[in-house]
């Protein structure tokens, strides 16, 4: 197991290298002037700006040189300081948010992770529960109702559903506001006395003993979670239900019944765990998707995660930021896939990790 993990981890740099080559290669489809224009916001004022950008970012250099510049950075001729170089954690400057991309990611990612942690429960557990119940009551009223309920969910475009619940629960009822925190609590969190132990807001709030801040944070996360959940349940329901029906037809389920297990034990101890394999895959991808930032949901609910930032950067052709996010997402994806693979082994002893 350990060897397997180490071997997989050793692959990470190579995979990231591949990702970076791919992304970098795609950029080369633009000519130097066109790429320089990506560094200039809005309408430009002078020729010098373009020339300076071409020169500064070495946009007319050979590709390998540009790539190494991007990888290890360049030494500024005047100040003697290193500029750029993702190997040194410098992902460049995010024009859209006026800060280094690395700062943007390190500031935004905890928010996304926080949302992921709280959203995973409702999405996955309820999704699985719906699927299991549907399978157990195959073709019964619960099954039909759950399927209709969740199909309605999948057919909603995210932002239509998002805006709908926002209009109802915020604009009209004012129960669940968008954003991250109310202004009052945002001041608390920014104050000296509030310690950022984990950088995850909800956990920090609890560790600081600020239940009010915690509740306010949850209040702001409710609608994103509701939206993400409702839109994901159909998928979980379908996969879990199919897998459960398949499993319930297995001989060992009959065996379990013949043993004299109660129906509940038959389902919970024998059928459900065995039906989880495809669900683990789905859950893995769902979690990876959430961690990569959920663009539309974060944007609609003004939730400051990396999805919203990536959307903003893409919309404004902020290539440097998009590149940074792509690399970061590549990393997340690779690590999350590894975790999912390891989880397989836990869920199914037949899977040997070697």
């Amino acid at each position, binding site marked *: 197991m350990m060897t397997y993990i180490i071997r997989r981890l050793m692959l990470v740099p190579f995979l990231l290298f591949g990702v970076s080559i791919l992304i970098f290669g795609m950029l080369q489809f633009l000519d130097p002037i066109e790429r320089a224009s990506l560094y200039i916001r809005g309408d430009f004022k002078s020729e010098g700006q373009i020339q300076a950008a071409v020169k500064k970012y070495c946009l007319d250099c050979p590709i390998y040189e540009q790539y190494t510049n991007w990888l290890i950075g360049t030494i500024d001729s005047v100040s003697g300081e290193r500029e750029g170089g993702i190997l040194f954690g410098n992902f460049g400057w995010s024009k859209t948010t006026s800060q280094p991309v690395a700062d943007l990611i390190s500031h935004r990612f905890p928010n996304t992770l926080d949302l992921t942690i709280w959203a995973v429960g409702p999405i996955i557990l309820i999704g699985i529960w719906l699927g299991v119940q549907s399978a157990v009551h195959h*073709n019964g009223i619960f099954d039909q109702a759950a399927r209709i309920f969740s199909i309605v969910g999948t057919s909603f475009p995210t932002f239509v559903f998002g805006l709908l619940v926002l209009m109802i629960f915020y604009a009209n009822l004012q129960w669940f506001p968008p954003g991250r925190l109310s202004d009052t609590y945002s001041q608390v969190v920014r104050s000296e006395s509030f310690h950022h132990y984990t950088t995850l807001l909800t956990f920090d709030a609890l560790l600081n003993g600020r239940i009010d801040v915690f509740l306010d944070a949850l209040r702001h996360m409710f609608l994103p979670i509701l939206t993400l959940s409702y839109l994901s349940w159909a998928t979980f329901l379908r996969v879990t239900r199919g897998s459960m029906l398949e499993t319930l037809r*297995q*001989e*060992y389920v*009959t*065996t*379990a*019944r*013949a*043993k*004299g*297990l*109660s129906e509940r*034990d038959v389902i919970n101890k*024998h059928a459900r*765990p*065995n039906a989880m394999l495809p669900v683990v895959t789905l859950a893995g991808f769902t979690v990876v998707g959430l961690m990569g930032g959920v663009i539309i949901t974060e944007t609609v609910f003004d939730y400051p995660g990396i999805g919203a930032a990536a959307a903003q950067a893409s919309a404004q052709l902020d290539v440097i930021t998009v590149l940074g996010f792509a690399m970061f997402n590549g990393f997340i994806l690779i690590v999350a896939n590894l975790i999912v693979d390891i989880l397989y082994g836990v*869920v*199914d*002893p*037949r899977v040997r990790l070697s």
Partner: protein
Amino acid sequence: MSANNEVLLQVKDLEMHFPIYRGVFQRKVGAVRAVDGVTFDVRRGETLGLVGESGCGKSTTGRTILQLYKPTNGGVSFEGNDLLKLKGEEMRLMRRKMQMIFQDPYASLNPRMTVGQLVGEPLMVHNVATGAEINERVAHLLKVVNLNPAFSTRYPHEFSGGQRQRIGVARALALQPSFIICDEPISALDVSIQAQVVNLLEELQEQFNLTYLFIAHDLSMVKHISDRVAVMYLGVFVEVAERDELYAKPLHPYTQALLSAVPIPDPVADAKRARTILKGDVPSPANPPSGCRFRTRCPIAEARCADSRPEFREVSPGHFVACHLVN
């Protein structure tokens, strides 16, 4: 074989029909008559072999007896208790006494559980044993089925087919049942291992005074182990007799056809004997032929066979047959 006359299991007019639903509104349009009126007894200590082609309803009969399916009609009484009347918990407790060994040693063991858990679980759910006692019992059971007790921490996929089937046997034995339905326990195994398992089952029968309903799809498999043999065709019994009687003097044309398909060890004699080759396919159990179920493939069928269903009658002591043409 210490068959006595005490009736352990009594099956009367058992019917198991699976409904067929069609269309948008899932209307019931018919039923698969998997078991369509079956009556027989099993005596304590004996082995009743149940033979028939695939799809004839023999496995369904076994499962319906154990109430793994809810029968459409008829009665099953075990040690005098009407199983159909037992509710949840009572039935669950009754399961201690009646167990099943499955055909597929791969599919019938939960792949996520270790051998110890698989064999020990019945002990736990029935509160027969707890804690360390379970481990002891599991070790003992594994020994009984000639498996190394150290295997109890392994998963089923680490074993061969024969070993797995013995795990299945150990599991079935765990609660010390008096009655075991062996649902084609050797069909999926290599021929070399079949005898091993059959011998084990016989040994265990003697050791624990077990009663078997031994289901198989051809007569050769049950010849060795059975005291009596029943032949089933398309949801009904066509012939039941003492083993020797049946093999020596099969009365029903279907039994005769099945027997003629059993190879005999002497190749010369085998080549000489007359064969009854059945034509056509088994009709659909959703739409069985009128009158005698077998008439569509019967070499000697007459007009009356289509008109009325032959009575399942005792033609000589202990020998029942359902055929108009047998006297």
